[in-house]
């Protein structure tokens, strides 16, 4: 068995969270992990720390403290201004070798997944990816990760006894977003990194951030399928009234009625809203995977045999072109009453 770069015997009893950031803000997923990390650390009497990598990122240290981290380990270098897999892996590697935390959690975002993957190999340690839940075993400080496989059909519990750090990635929205608190101040520790321009072989040439729509975070999801027949305007109106987002199945996306970023399901976005309203969607397996985690599912379809009804809490056999306008009118009416 290969040994990891450091062993359980050498570990610092700390839970580390990768503080991913963009445009002077900590990513929500990092905050969620801080919330969960704080809870797990408190259970064991361990430290919670954040790993912050970048250039001129001191303001983010303050933000991190408001999520009650005991320490922020900051790796600062001009070459870390933009994300590069080589630079960030090297920075994280050096910080982890220095501090030797027991646990290292990262959000399962496009860049952090790559970072976690490279880091785990560099450290010769294990990595539990896309976890749906985490817990610490108090007796031995082992992290138990729950992961799903086979499109969500199978759940597995995974852990590593002999390797450190115990790494895990978690998707945004799995853990709740904590509220920041004022007045909490921790320790900030700066770590140096050996980095030359010649170490970096990748470059971001152009970047266009979207309007920030993130379906996976939406509290209310209004999803449309074939039965909507391209008429997404009324779904957008409903979503606006409910302060939610609009999603879609593959057929309307393929037909160009709505953009691919809004596709929900196995090959699209997996959402966990409080409410999912499925309009004119038949309910094929690969779509349902995208809304399974919703607290409440409402389905509207003209076909009483539509499979979606097996996955819904409230089932309406009807035409969305009649039900949605009526619902929109009803909601507008009740909002007027409130504002009157």
């Amino acid at each position, binding site marked *: *068995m*290969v040994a990891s770069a450091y062993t359980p015997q050498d570990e610092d009893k700390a839970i580390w969270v990768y503080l991913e950031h963009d445009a002077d803000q900590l990513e929500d997923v990092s905050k969620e992990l801080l919330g969960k990390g704080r809870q797990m650390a408190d259970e064991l009497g361990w430290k919670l720390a954040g790993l912050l990598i970048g250039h001129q990122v001191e303001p983010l240290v303050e933000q991190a403290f408001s999520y009650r981290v005991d320490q922020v380990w900051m790796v600062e270098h001009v070459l870390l201004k933009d994300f590069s*897999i080589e630079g960030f*892996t090297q920075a994280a590697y050096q910080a982890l070798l220095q501090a030797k935390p027991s646990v290292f959690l990262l959000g*399962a975002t496009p860049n952090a*997944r790559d970072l976690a*993957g*490279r880091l785990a*190999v560099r450290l010769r*340690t*294990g990595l539990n*990816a*896309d976890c749906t839940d985490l817990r610490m075993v108090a007796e031995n400080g082992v992290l138990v990760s729950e992961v*799903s*496989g086979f*499109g*969500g*059909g*199978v*759940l597995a*519990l*995974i*852990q*590593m*006894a002999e390797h450190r750090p115990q790494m895990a990635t978690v998707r945004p929205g799995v853990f709740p977003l904590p509220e920041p608190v004022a007045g909490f101040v921790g320790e900030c520790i700066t770590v140096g990194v050996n980095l030359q321009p010649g170490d970096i*072989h*990748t*470059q*971001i*040439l*152009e*970047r*266009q*951030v*979207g309007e920030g*729509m*993130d379906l996976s975070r939406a509290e209310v999801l209004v999803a449309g399928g074939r039965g909507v027949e391209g008429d997404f305007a009324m779904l957008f109106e409903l979503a606006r009234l409910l302060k939610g987002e609009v999603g879609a199945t593959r057929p309307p996306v393929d037909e160009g009625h709505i953009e691919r*970023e809004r596709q929900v399901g196995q*090959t699209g976005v997996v959402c966990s809203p409080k*409410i999912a309203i499925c309009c004119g969607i038949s309910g094929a397996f690969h779509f349902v995977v995208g809304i*399974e*985690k919703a*607290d*409440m599912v*409402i389905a509207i379809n003209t076909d009483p045999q539509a499979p979606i*009804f*097996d*996955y819904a*809490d*409230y*089932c*309406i*056999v*009807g035409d969305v072109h*009649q*039900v949605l*306008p*009526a*619902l929109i009118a*009803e909601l507008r009416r009740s909002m007027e009453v409130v504002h009157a």
Partner: protein
Amino acid sequence: MPELHSVVCVKVVPKPEEVRVDEQTHSLVRAQVRSEINPPDMNAMEMALGLKDRYGGTVSILSMGPPLFEPYLRAALAMGADHIYLLSDPAFAGADTLATTYTLSLGVRKIGAVDLVFCGEESSDGATGQVPAGLAEWLDLPQLSLLTHIDLNLQERLAHGRRELKGGYEIVRATLPCVVSVKTAANEPRFIDYAIKDWAFGEGRITVWGHEALGAELALIGLAGSPTRVTGLAEAQTRHRRREFIDGDPQHIAHRLAQLLRDNN
């Protein structure tokens, strides 16, 4: 200029809807489960073959698995690839991502003269999505991940790609050779090319390497090389839904829905 040579990592996986878990042994029931090529790996194949269409060269398929993978890999070969390399050895079994990426990296090194290594974004069984990054680390290569499109500048030995993320996109660039992970459903995988089908299923070259041929360190492969352990396995319980039908005219339905939305939002 030497020919462009891409390697595509392909995994054969059980069809997700067919998978069952044995409650007693907490392991997957593998018997009589139909398999398929991991769908994102089909997208990786298509991206590599698209580059072959445009720039020429060859495409090699690399896979780690038992001999039963062979007919599936030949279907991938029949899409237009040139060679299959199968890393097959009982010692490779039970590998988690660390051991898998180590083994695959040895395969890539042994194949040699590789410009691009393509992987699907993740696999439908484990779905860790960590193989591309881990593989890049073992090979000490740059990586471009979650690409939907790719272009090459062979003179300057560069790859340009487009990644879609956060509702927007990035145009990224890396030096060759590099590892590329391909976004699921980024393209439409071409069907089997009947001009080469008979060759692919007949004389088509398949090279099988075990741990000795690869010069693998035993401590780094298979179960021995896997830091993580599965301690529990269960079929996920599908959430129980109310399945309550609401009848009536649209106004009545709207009224009831508005009520539900108010109560639950």
